[in-house]
């Protein structure tokens, strides 16, 4: 993956395990029209060709769930923010 610094033209992908606590994560992510949510086995695959930003309050997850909801981040992308406000994944 050729990671452009501005994130354009690069597919960012993160994986979220399908368990009840995590259901709102892909739902909120999908509200951004640039984001696609697919499936790979029991994982949600959340992708976009721009930075993916998921708002914690919109997800409504308690802290323990919020800070453990990411199962994987595809090589080439990285989490650049994961705090009480938001999760942000963009080119590494």
């Amino acid at each position, binding site marked *: 993956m050729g990671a452009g610094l501005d994130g354009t033209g690069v597919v960012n*992908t*993160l*994986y979220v*395990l*399908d*368990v*009840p*606590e995590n*259901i709102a994560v892909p739902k909120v992510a999908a509200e951004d029209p640039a984001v696609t949510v697919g499936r*790979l*086995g*029991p*994982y949600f695959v959340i992708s976009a060709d721009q930075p993916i930003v998921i708002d914690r309050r919109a997800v409504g997850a*308690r802290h*323990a*769930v919020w800070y*453990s909801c*990411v*199962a*994987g*981040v*595809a*090589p080439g992308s*990285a*989490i650049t923010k994961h705090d009480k406000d938001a999760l942000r994944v963009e080119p590494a």
Partner: protein
Amino acid sequence: MSELDHRVRGVDHVAFPTFDPAATVHFYRDVLGFPVVHSICAAGWGPEQHPDFIHFFFDIGNDDRIAFFYYFGTDPSVGGPRGAKGDVYGRFAADVPEYFVRSRHLAIHVDGEEDLLEYRRRLDASDWPVEMQIQHETIESIYTHDPNGYFFEITRALRPVTPQEDLDAGLTIDALLDVVSGPDPTFGKLLARKAELIVERAAGWAPASTGPAS
């Protein structure tokens, strides 16, 4: 992915020293209601000038047991200088982070919220009230410190563990072992390696029985 058959049957006992058997019995037997189920009264012997001791056991359910050693003629100094943090066994300086001090602990299982709250009531009526009640990822726990300073947890599952969590745990461990075998392991490297393993293995995964669909 072990091929070995799994023959063990839970905790026989976990053992700790105590220098305050009266408070320990009061906490476990009288406050929590854990029956005393076994004890050994032993004269010290052997090359190390072992003190005479009492080894006593409380049932923690499921026939599992928590046990204590009381050594006659000793006090906490046998374990070294008093620590600013920790318990009568593990002593730590003031600057040791709390997450590390609390990392080693015993959590006892209950079946549901009603039972968790019953133990909360028993502790709150005692000299060792509940210090925290926390919903973690998939469990809810109450915490206190026992009379010996041991960090003590009672926990319930918020829901059954799903089959896909077993898959995910296996991928996590494989990714972790890969990452710690290389230089400078980080959480970011683990998530990247785990993503590769998800791509390799998740598509072919199927729950053994009827897993939750979505």
